[in-house]
C-alpha cells in the first residue's frame, strides 16, 4: 500500500512539475491530465470510489478537454516563446513551500495522520451515504444548493454573453 502511495505521489508531483515547465501548451495540458489522474488514483486508494470516478469524469472528461480546446482554438503558435520564468519565481516558490510546510505541520498535529485508513464495515453503502448527506438538512444541503444556484447563474451568464440577437437566428 505504501509503495502504491509513493508511486502515485511521484506521478502527481512529477507531472505537476511538467505542467509548469513544459514549453508546449498542449503538452502542459496533457501533463495536467496525468496529474489529475494521479489524484483520482489517490482517491481510489482512500476507498473514495465516487470521488475517484467523478475526478476522472469532471476533470479529465470536461475541464482538461476544455483546456486543450481553448489552447488549440485561441493560439496560432502552440509553442510558448520567451523566458519560462519571470522575476516573481522566487516569491512564488517561497509561497508554495510555505503553504506545503504549513499544511504538513497542521496535518502532523492531527491524530489520524499516522493511522492507515480503515476499511468500510461490510455492507456499508458509501455512495448511498454520500448521496443522503448531500440532500439531508443537517448535513450539506445548503452548500450543495448554493453551488447549484451558482452554476445555473454561470450558465445563464454564459448564454447571455454568447447570444447575439442580431446574428442568432439563421432561419430568417
Amino acid at each position, binding site marked *: 500500500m505504501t509503495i502504491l502511495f509513493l508511486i502515485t505521489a511521484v506521478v502527481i508531483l512529477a507531472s505537476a512539475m511538467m505542467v509548469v515547465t513544459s514549453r508546449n501548451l*498542449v*503538452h502542459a495540458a*496533457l501533463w495536467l*491530465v496525468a496529474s489529475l489522474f494521479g489524484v483520482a488514483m489517490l482517491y481510489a486508494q482512500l476507498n473514495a*470510489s*465516487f470521488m475517484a*470516478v*467523478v475526478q*476522472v*469524469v469532471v476533470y*479529465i*472528461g*470536461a475541464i*482538461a*478537454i476544455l483546456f*486543450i*480546446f481553448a489552447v*488549440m482554438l485561441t493560439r496560432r503558435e502552440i509553442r510558448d516563446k520567451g523566458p519560462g520564468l519571470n522575476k516573481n519565481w522566487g516569491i512564488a516558490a517561497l509561497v508554495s513551500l510555505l503553504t506545503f510546510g504549513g499544511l504538513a505541520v497542521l496535518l502532523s498535529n492531527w491524530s489520524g495522520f499516522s493511522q492507515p485508513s480503515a476499511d468500510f464495515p461490510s455492507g456499508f*453503502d*458509501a*455512495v448511498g451515504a454520500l448521496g443522503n448527506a448531500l440532500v439531508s438538512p443537517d448535513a450539506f444541503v445548503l452548500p450543495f444548493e448554493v453551488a447549484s444556484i451558482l452554476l445555473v447563474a454561470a450558465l445563464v451568464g454564459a448564454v447571455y454573453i454568447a447570444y447575439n440577437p442580431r446574428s442568432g437566428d439563421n*432561419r430568417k
Partner: protein
Amino acid sequence: MNFWANPIQVTADWLMGLFTGWGMTEVLASILTQLLGIVVMITIMLVIDILLVWIERKVVARFQDRLGPNRGGPFGLIQPFADIIKLFIKENITPAGVDKVVYNLAPILSVFSVLILWAIIPLAPVIIGVDLNVGLLYLVAAGAIGTLSIIMAGWSSNNKFALLGAFRQVAAMISYEIPMVVALLIPTVLAGTMGMLGISEAQQGMWYVFLSPLAALIFLISAVAELGRTPFDLSEGESEVVAGFHIEYSGMKFGWFYAGELLHAFTFGGFWGILFFGGYHFFGLENLGPLVAAAIVLFKALIGYWVIMWIKYTLMRIRIDHMLAFNWKFLVPLSLVVLMVTALLNTLLRDTSTWVMAVSMFLSNVLIAWVVIEILRGRSRTEREKVESPAQPVVEATH
C-alpha cells in the same frame, strides 16, 4: 468447490495453491493470479474483436445485398486473420512533424478506454472483474479517456484534416455524453444502485426496457453518437476531412483504432443488454451455470451490436448543426423529463406490486412519447408553412 459452479474462483484458488507451492508469498501470488486473470480477459476480448471484423463485414454485405468475404475458409472465417496479419506486417509510417509520444500513445489509449470497460461487466453472478459501487459512472469516465485519445490523435498528427475530424468527433462525444448520463441514471433509479451486478440482479422479474423504453432508446442513440458511427459519423468524409482523426495512422496503429471502434460498439451493445435487457437473465436459463450466463450476456451484446450495425448501414448521415441541435434541443430535455417522471413514479409506486409498477411506468413512457411526437408534429407544420407560404414582400425592409 465445483468447477462448473464457480469457474473463476476455482481456477484462482488452484493458481494460488500452485504459486504458493513454488515458494511465493501470499501477496505476490495473489497479485500474479489477478494479473493473469486480467491478461486472459483482455486476450479473450481481443480474439472476439478479430471475429467482430468478420461479423461486421458479413453483416454489411447482407445489408447491401452482397455475400461478403467468402473465399478464405468456411464462410470466409479465415479472412479476418488474414486482415490482422496484413495490418501487423504493414509499415508503420510516422509522418514528419508529428508529436511522437502523443502520436503513439493515442491508439493505445483508444483501445485501453474500451478494454477497461470489461472490468465491470457482469458476465455471470460469479464472473465479474470488480463490482464497483459506482459502475455506471466508471462507464462515463472510461468514455472521457476515449475522448482524450481522439483529441490526442487529431492534434499530434500535424494534419489539419485530422484536427478538424477530431474536433467534430469530440464535439459530438461531449454533447451526447449528457443524455447518456441521464439515461444511465434511469436504471440507477429503478435498481437503487449504480453497481452493474445490482442492476443485473434487479432485472430478474422485469427487464428495464419494459419499464422505460424511452431510456433504452436514448441510451442507444447517444451510444451510437459516442461511437461516431452513422448517422453521427461527421468525423469522416472523403470529400471534406478524409478519414478524420486517424488519417495519419498506418499499419497496426490504425488497426488499434479500428479494433477499438468495433470493440466499443460491441461493448456498448453489451451495456445496452445489461442495463435494459436483463443482463444474464434469460427466462431462468442462467441458472444452468455461470458459463451459460456468460454466453447469454455475450449473445445479448451481439444483438446490441447488430442493432448498432443495422442503424449504421440503414440511415444516412445528418448535418453537424442538426446533430448538435438534435442533442441539445431534443434529447437532453427529453431525457430529463423521462428521468423526472421515472423517479417520481418509482417513489410513488414503491410499495405496489411489480406488475402495477411496470404497467404504469410503461404507460407513462408511452404518454411522454405521444406528447413529444405531437410537439414535433406542430413544430414541423409551422416550419413547413413558413417555407411553403408565398414569399414575404421584402421591399418593406429596405426603408
